[in-house]
Every structure is written in structure tokens, then in C-alpha cells.
């Protein structure tokens, strides 16, 4: 997982609350053998609607999703995070996230930035009036900035630390690589191997 400290990209206003993970990616897209390629399932039920925000330039090139409250509820599928990231999103802004989604986000490297609802409204207005506006999310300062708007966001310290350090579960274990090396050095030579 790459460390994230700041990210800048086109903001996408999604004026919908309670976006559950079945809407983010329906179950029919979960049969794959890969951990990538889920972008085609992202919001697939809404893609038939020409007015859906991601069907329009320049939003289709967006990487900062500004959504309504209670984002990521429902099924625990990690594929919801993978689908958002595969599409190109690096940050989701909402005034409230579902717990499991929030946990899955920090595992996958997606920033789930909690912004107060009035500030979300400000961002929505700006992004709708001036499509293509870039939004900068600063994880160190915990701020969201777009044009002359700068608002704070919340994220739990552990998730923030993992994102800043670029640590997934494996990354966390690899911080103890010395201990693993040391252990391996003491293994008896008689231990079985699968090769040679």
C-alpha cells in the first residue's frame, strides 16, 4: 500500500445518502479471481441513468467522491473499497461512514474523510457550479481544500497513521521483518521444504 499524505483530484458531488455497498458494487460482480477490475461494477445500477454524475465529463475523471451521509452501509464486502479504488477514487468524503466500510477503507488505502454536513453542502455547491474543480485532501493537517474553501475532516488516529505510513496488515507485520529474519535463522536445517 502506498503512503498517502495529500491527494489532489477532481471532486465528484454525489447528492445521495445511505449509499450501501450493494449499490457501490452488486453481488453479481464478486465472482472474479482478481482483486482488481471491479471498476465496471461500481454503481452499476445507476450507470444506465445518463444524468448520473459519473456518466458526465469531467466528473468521470474524478478521484474525490463527496457523498451524502451514511456511506458504505450494508454488506461487509471489501470489493466496495476495491471498486472505488479501481475506478480511480482515492478519497471519499461523507458526514458519516458505516463502521465496516471505514475499516475496509484503511485496509485498502482509501481515505474515508468525515466532514460536517454543512461543509459537505458547501463542497457540493462549489463542485456543481464549477465542474472539474480540484479538491485537495491533506491527511497531515486533516483538511479538505477546494478553491477558497478549506474545511476540517475527522479520521481515527490509527487509520490515519496506517494511511500516512502506507501500512496494510501485511505492512504492519513486515515492520517486524527483523524478528522474522531472526526466527528463520534459528530454524533447524532438518525442517521440511517443498523444493529441491
Amino acid at each position, binding site marked *: 500500500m502506498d503512503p498517502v499524505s495529500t491527494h489532489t483530484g477532481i471532486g465528484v458531488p454525489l447528492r445521495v445518502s445511505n449509499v450501501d455497498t450493494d449499490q457501490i458494487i452488486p453481488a453479481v460482480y464478486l465472482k472474479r479471481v482478481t*482483486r482488481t477490475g471491479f471498476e465496471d461494477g461500481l454503481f452499476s445500477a445507476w450507470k444506465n441513468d445518463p444524468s448520473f454524475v459519473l456518466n458526465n465529463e469531467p466528473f468521470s475523471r474524478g478521484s474525490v467522491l463527496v457523498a451524502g451521509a451514511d456511506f458504505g452501509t450494508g454488506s461487509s464486502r471489501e470489493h466496495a473499497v476495491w471498486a472505488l479504488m479501481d475506478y480511480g477514487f482515492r478519497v471519499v468524503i461523507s458526514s458519516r461512514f458505516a463502521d465496516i466500510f471505514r475499516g475496509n477503507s484503511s485496509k485498502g488505502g482509501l481515505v474515508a474523510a468525515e466532514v460536517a454536513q454543512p461543509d459537505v453542502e458547501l463542497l457540493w455547491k462549489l463542485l456543481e457550479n464549477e465542474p472539474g474543480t480540484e479538491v485537495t485532501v491533506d491527511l497531515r493537517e486533516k483538511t479538505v481544500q477546494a478553491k477558497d474553501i478549506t474545511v476540517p475532516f475527522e479520521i481515527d488516529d490509527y487509520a490515519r497513521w496506517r494511511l500516512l505510513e502506507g501500512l496494510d496488515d*501485511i505492512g504492519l507485520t513486515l515492520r517486524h521483518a527483523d*524478528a522474522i529474519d531472526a*526466527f528463520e535463522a534459528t530454524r*533447524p536445517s532438518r525442517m*521440511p521444504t517443498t523444493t529441491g
Partner: protein
Amino acid sequence: MSTTGRTLAEKVWDQHLVRKGEGQEPDLLYIDLHLVHEVTSPQAFDGLRLAGRPVRRTDLTIATEDHNVPTLDVLAPIADEVSRTQVDTLRRNCEEFGVELYPMNHAEQGIVHVVGPQLGLTQPGTTVVCGDSHTSTHGAFGAMAFGIGTSEVEHVLATQTLPLKAFKTMAINVNSSDGTLRPGVTSKDVVLAIIAQIGTGGGQGHVLEYRGNVIDNLSMEARMTICNMSIEAGARAGMIAPDETTFAYLKGRDRAPQGDQWDSAVTAWRELRTDDDASFDRTVDIDGDALTPFVTWGTNPGQGLPLAGNVPDPAAIADEGEAAATRKSLDYMGLTAGTPLREVGVDAVFVGSCTNGRIEDLRSVAEILDGRQVAKGVRMLVVPGSMRVRFQAEDEGLDKVFTGAGAEWRSAGCSMCLGMNPDQLAPGERCASTSNRNFEGRQGKGGRTHLVSPLVAAATAVRGTLSSPEDLD
């Protein structure tokens, strides 16, 4: 955990501790052997690729194709698209990451839990993991072995370690007056009886250690059958202390220690016993003298009874919840309360799986089938657990006994245990199966499964109703 004597499980845990967790952190344990198959590995390899990570120890990792593979026409491309994709993906991943793979038609291919032991890779005191719950099988060697999820598969591939929370210990003592089981009673009956006694959640959070004179006298293959189904009691793992039987099984196998190393290994392995002053969190006693052939009548492995019994009557069960669960199971199974289990007729018999697909299992089935015929209207599949088992059975002429009796002799794989390949029951079909799970739809949508020993499977095939060898002429 005990501060004085330690149990077998605690000793193996301590020997693999890379780092003791601080506070709420789990311990970090080293993994000696990682077994990989096509179903639970693709996203794990893809995760490595995305993060630019290699497999840390390809020399401690081995892959085989088992869950999806057809057991007929094995030289043709796999017809089912999803199955073919998973198998092809495993082949590409193993090639890219340098993992040794035993593909279909390779002499070492087979069910992952049959392959590890027969190569001598599964050794006493090792830690063994696989993205498959029946990894508990390997505990028969005094290894600590458990199933893991796909994200953990990726974790082990990348780090050769796993963060694990502490466990509780449970002793399961199986003793009989002379250390033997009654004729016609096998280790499968022992484990089905254990699960019926402690329940499918009885082992939760525990590592089970099977002990007692009955266990001491079992062969390695019979011990594997018991440890295999530890997961059906909800346990994290099941173990049996290594002894002379274990050492004799391992000696000379391809991956077992050779020469001087063999002697030092055996010396170390002899230490792998629960200390006399160690204590278990829980103890369960099983009377080996009372055990008779056991069959399941319901839709979870805990719903079992002696074959001599009758289909249970929900009306006679005081507990409302249990009565309702029984009714639901009987409804799915198409059984009437009070029917003697021996009168339940079957459409199919499946011999195979990581539970009972080894050479001793096939020999015991052949012994019953020799000179007899599978009953009219009954389809019998005999599926060896590995290609080695298949070749050995053919060397011994067992295949001729099976086909001569009217059974089908197949290639190696998981097959009808879980019906991910074409070997499935039709809706409503009833099967006596030597496998490990009788869940609704496990062997095919609408299929009805009775878990049985190989001996009961063979006798049932001959009579067409649930039977044991003593029912045969």
C-alpha cells in the same frame, strides 16, 4: 495458559513465536508449511502483485489443484468456465511467483490434505496452514494446523507468519478396555460420536488434543480422519501427539528428514507430548467400548446417531429450538421420525474426500465389495484422494474390485464432497458419503447427505439402505 507443564499445542505455539503481542495485539507465529489450492488463492496472489511483494518462502509453499477438478475425462480442458478460470489462474500465479504446483494429471496431484502427509511434508511440531478449513487434518502428526481466509493466505505468502490470538485447550480422551474398537467401528465413527456429543460449536476457540489408548492404537490415516473433522466441532485445530506410529509413517518419505537429520528429528519429536502436570481448559471422555457404527441423519455433522438407532422424533425433544431445528433437518432430508436408520434407502454412495480418501479407506471398501455387487439403482463413486492413492490402489487391484462390483473408479480430487466439479447429487437424491459435511446442498442443490465411515459406505452400497458390514451375508 499454564505456567508449569505445557500441553502439546502450547509447546508447538511457543516454538513458533516470532513476536509476543503487546497488550491487545495478537502473537506473531511462524508458519512452516503453506498449502495452496485454486479456490482461495487468486485474490491473495493478486494482492501481492498489486503491492509488488514476492512470496517470501517459495520453499515452504506448495500448490495443488483439487476443489474444482473433474474426476472424469481429466485430459480434456475443464468444461466449466469458472472452474477452468480458477485452475488456469493458479497455474499462472504459481509460475509468476515461483511456487511449486502439482497440476491435474501430475503424479503428485490430489487433495491438498492428502498430498502434504504422503510427501512427508507434514511433520510433528510444525505449523501448517491452508485456505481450507480441513487443514486440521495435519494435526494427526502433532502439527498445529488450521484453515485460513484469503487475506490471511496473502499474509502468509508475503511474510511466512500469521498474527494469531491465544487459544484454549481441550483434551478428548478416547479409551476402551483393551484399546481397540469393536469390529466394524472406525475412527470416522469415533469422530462422528465426538461431534454428536460436544456439538458443532463445542470446540469453539479450542485446540483439541485427542488422547487415550484407542487413539494410540490407530494408524496415521485413521488419526487423520479424526483430526480432519475437528473443524466440524468448531475447533481451531485438532492434534495427536506423535509416537512410533507417526515416525514409522514418515520414515523414508520424500520430504522427511534423511540420515543423521532423521535421528535428530525423532529426538525433538519425542518431546512433543503434553506434560504430565499440564492442564487443559476442558476435558471430554469418550467410552470406546460403547462405540458402534455412526451415521448422521440431519443437516449438520452434529446430528448423528448410532446406525442401530431410529430417526429422531422432534415431538420427543423438550428444547423448543432443538425440536424446530430437528424438524427442519428432517424436512430437508425427507425422513420420517421413528424410521430405523437401517431402513433408509440411498441413491448414491460416495467414497473419497480429505476425510476418507486414503489407501486404507479404499482397501476397507474393497474388502467389503470383493465378490459382491452394488445394489440395483445405487450409483457408487470411488474417488481417490490423490494420484498416488489412485496408482497404489491400481497396483493392489482395488480398482478392479470397485468396477467389478459396479462402482465408478475416478481420478483424484475433492469431487462430490462439495460438488464444485460435475460430481453432484441431483435434487432429492440421497447419498451415504464418507466426506465431512452434510450441509443442505453441499453435494449438489437439494442433495441429501448421510455422513458415514468407509465400511458403512461399502455395506450401504451393497444393500441399498444404510448398513454396516455385519448386516451383510
